[in-house]
């Protein structure tokens, strides 16, 4: 792995960035290593995450830690590292995007950015707010800009949303349609953490409160952006991987248990994610294992199952298996 020193260096830096972020997150949250990994992958792949879990599972802490871990080194704009929006039915789009306020001193309207202008934004219970607000939020996620009074305001490049919704307690909610769910790279269903991890959470609670994460090294915004670029450029995707992804998607569409298969866009979004995953596994190329790990999180919320079908994770695994096996075998032939 010494062919291209700059490439190696860039990847090395990227994995260091990821490692630092991971360390900080793991220090703050116990027993959620898988979720942390997925979050970091989404961050590196420039995607957003929808967490499905119950209150008190540590998602705000996680998002806050992540936001705190990134130092804003952009001097021009003053953007908060972390913001949290609690979505309610009476929220208005301007509550999140910001409003133009009349400045009597200058005699002009001035834009006051809303909470969405941050590096890491946590949208709590996004399904509780009205579709109008959801649409504004999702536009911001997709376009990385907000439009207020016909003026578009660019969001930061790092803009990373962690939205949550409660899988139970669906009364009075506005469930996100599939088209809007498509804005999220991952939908992560958090399962209860292990017993030992939970005990650890209680045991180390005081200690962790005392010695804050401040001691652990942080990363700068530009470092994160650099890591994103390095992953995109230097983690190799074998052409067979493309074949494999397309085959998985086709298998899913063909399956009688699937009513609406996954889109081509989801495959495109999956590519940076598997690259990030590969780097996290200390590799500069993508393997079938990466796809196997990420595909369920990317595909579940993008497809519609036929009536009677359940457990989309298993279904995706089954549909992916032949294509993954073919990719594995390809590796022995060449």
């Amino acid at each position, binding site marked *: *792995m010494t*062919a*291209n020193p700059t490439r190696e260096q860039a990847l090395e830096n990227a994995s260091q960035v990821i490692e630092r972020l991971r360390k900080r997150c793991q220090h703050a949250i116990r027993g959620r290593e898988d979720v942390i990994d997925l979050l970091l992958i989404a961050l590196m792949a420039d995607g957003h995450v929808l967490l499905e879990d119950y209150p008190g599972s540590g998602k705000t802490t996680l998002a806050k830690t992540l936001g705190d871990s990134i130092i804003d080194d952009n001097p021009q704009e003053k953007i908060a590292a972390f913001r949290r929006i609690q979505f309610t039915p009476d929220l208005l789009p301007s509550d999140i995007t910001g409003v133009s306020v009349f400045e009597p001193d200058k005699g002009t309207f001035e834009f006051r950015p809303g909470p969405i202008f941050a590096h890491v934004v946590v949208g709590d219970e996004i399904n509780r707010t009205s579709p109008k607000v959801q649409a504004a939020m999702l536009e911001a996620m997709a376009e990385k800009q907000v439009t207020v009074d016909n003026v578009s305001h660019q969001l930061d490049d790092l803009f990373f949303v962690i939205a949550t919704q409660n899988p139970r307690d669906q009364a009075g909610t506005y469930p996100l349609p599939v088209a809007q769910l498509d804005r999220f790279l991952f939908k992560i269903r958090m399962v209860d953490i292990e017993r030992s991890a939970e005990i650890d959470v209680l045991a180390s609670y005081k200690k962790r409160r005392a010695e804050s994460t401040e001691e652990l090294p942080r990363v700068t915004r530009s470092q994160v952006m650099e890591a994103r670029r390095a992953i995109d450029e*230097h983690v*190799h995707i*074998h052409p067979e*991987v493309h074949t494999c992804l397309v085959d998985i998607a086709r298998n899913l569409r063909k399956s009688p248990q699937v009513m609406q298969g996954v889109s081509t866009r989801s495959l495109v979004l999956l590519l940076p994610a598997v690259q990030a995953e590969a780097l996290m596994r200390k590799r*500069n*190329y*993508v*393997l*079938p*294992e990466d796809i*196997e790990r990420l595909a369920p999180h990317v595909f579940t919320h993008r497809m519609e199952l036929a009536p009677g079908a359940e457990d989309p994770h298993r279904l995706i695994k089954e549909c*992916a*298996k*032949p294509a*993954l*096996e073919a990719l*594995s*075998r390809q*590796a*022995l032939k*060449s």
Partner: protein
Amino acid sequence: MIWGCAAAVAALQLSLPGPALSAFLGGFLGLFLAARLDRTPLRTPWGAALIALATLALQLLARLPAGLPSLGRLTGASNLLLLTEILSWFCLSLTTVAFWHFLSRRIRFFSGLELAIVVGILASPFAAHRGGFINRPYFLVDPLWSRGYDPVPVLFALGALAATAGALVTLGRSSRRGHMLDALLIPLLLLLIFALLPSRALRDWFPDKAESMGLTGKPREGGKGKGNERPQNEMELEDNHEQSHSPTPVAVVLLQDDYTPPSGAYYFRQTAFSVYNGRRLVADLVGQGDKDIPIGFPAPGLETSLPGRPASQVPTRKLKTTVALISSHTRPIGLITPERFISQSNPNPEQFWKAYEVESEVLLGDEMMLLGRPAGESGWSPELWKQYTEVPPDPRYKELADEVCERLRPELRRDPYAQALAVRFFLEKEGIYSLRSRHMHAAEPVADFLFGDKTGYCVHFAHAAVYLMRSQGVPARVGAGYYSDARNRGRGSSILIRSGEAHAWPEIYLQGVGWVVVDISPERSLVPEMSSPDPELQRMLGQMARNEKDELRGERKNLREMLLRFLLLALKVLLLAALVTMLGLGAWKVWRRLAFHYGPESRALGRAYRAALDALSDVGIRRQYGQGRLDFAREQQERFPELLELTRMHLDRVMGPPGTPPATRSEAVRRYRELTRSIRSQVKPARRLLGALNPFSWLLVK
């Protein structure tokens, strides 16, 4: 198409192939005609009438060429006949098929009828087979027999096929799966029936027609027979005698030496009727006379001897015959005069009911030598004399007999044989042979016959002759059994007896000669003469009875041997192929293990990795389907850490970005050696040996 075939089959039975072909075409066109007619608004009765009219007209038209002498001169008579035949068959099948099909299209009932007709026609060639003509239908069965195979399974299979097809059509399932299921289930059911049913039992379901003479049928035990069954020891003088000229074979007789009787016909006696019971003659149950009639079949391995002929004063000889009965009989039949019945093993239980050998004392020379011999035996008791000479108390018999004998030359008037001949000639001249007569309900049926219209069948004639002969004091009785014209024998030595040849005849007793047949064949007959038996069938059954299937069996044995040899060869080839395959696989396995030493450097790593996987596969460690290579290696990391390194090196090269320098051969070899070392240290030797010997293990490497 099926209609066309049916028409052709019908025509073929009555005509030549040419007309049959034309019948096929006619039938085929008839369908189209019917379909066309069906579409017209013509009403059904009118349509049918139209076709019927067309039938008539076309038949007339078809006969037209025959009436044209000029055409006849041009083509020759036989060609003209053929042409006529072709035309008439064509028209007939055209209109017939059109008629039925038109009706079946219009009226639901007729569609069923149409189906029945077609099936009936198509099945008709096979029906003969059931009737004992085991060589029918020729086109199918002959080739089978000639190769020594029993056609019954083939016919069963055909029947099963037809039944399946019929069932499938009639069931009319809509789904294809249903059809498939039926197509599978129905033959299975039929097969089950076939397997459970012995073929002999099947034959017993279809009784023979010779039953009417009381000759056939199994002996009944202790009068347990049903009420409507005829007692086996008498013969009814019935009207509308059922005994058609059925050509169903009932027995085959093999002459062990060439012999043609002086009378020109073989008589096979089964029983005789000599006791007058006030209405007709019945069998002698008391057993005073008729000692030459066998009571039953000889027990297996034994023989029955009969008195036979007295010390003969006329030229006779002993003749052995083998009788193979096709249908069951009450008593054995034997060529006159049988002396010994010797049981014999059944040469072909599939075809024959029973077989035995008969030793007969047969007459030689001219019948005229029988003249001048006194009647009866000197040692006979008066009772026996009375039994053989008793006549109904009707004086007309005596009068008629006297009158008949009056015609003889004076020196022969008291000669018994001459008297019998006179009676015979008289009846032959005066009598009319007919199966339809009206004497049954008369108080004296025989008198009613003899002094009435003299129209009757063999039983009437035999009785009348016996009464006339007895009235002259000649001991006489009615013999019953089968008779076969010597001409039917052809050149072969086997005689095929058919149920239509069941017969009754008068016999007289001459001193020093025994019972002599004086048969009557009326000059006038209302019954068409019976056709001679199928020589092919006669020959074939004869061969079977003679167990000459040996020849065929030999051929079959040869075939079996050939089959066996072929199977053996096939087995050898298979074994050899398996061996070669194993060796080839083994060799390839060894090559895969060593390949990384050779070939280009760039491929060494991949080959070393493959060899490592092979080595692991040998001891039963393989990647699961769908499992990632790295995951697999990580799974094995505890036991074989070298694999993970090797896998990573390989994947770096294969999946990694281009331009990555591959690991060197020496490095690959080193990793592989390390891995094999750890396999050796961790896996039991027995397991390793087993793996090493397995030539397939590498095939499972993915």
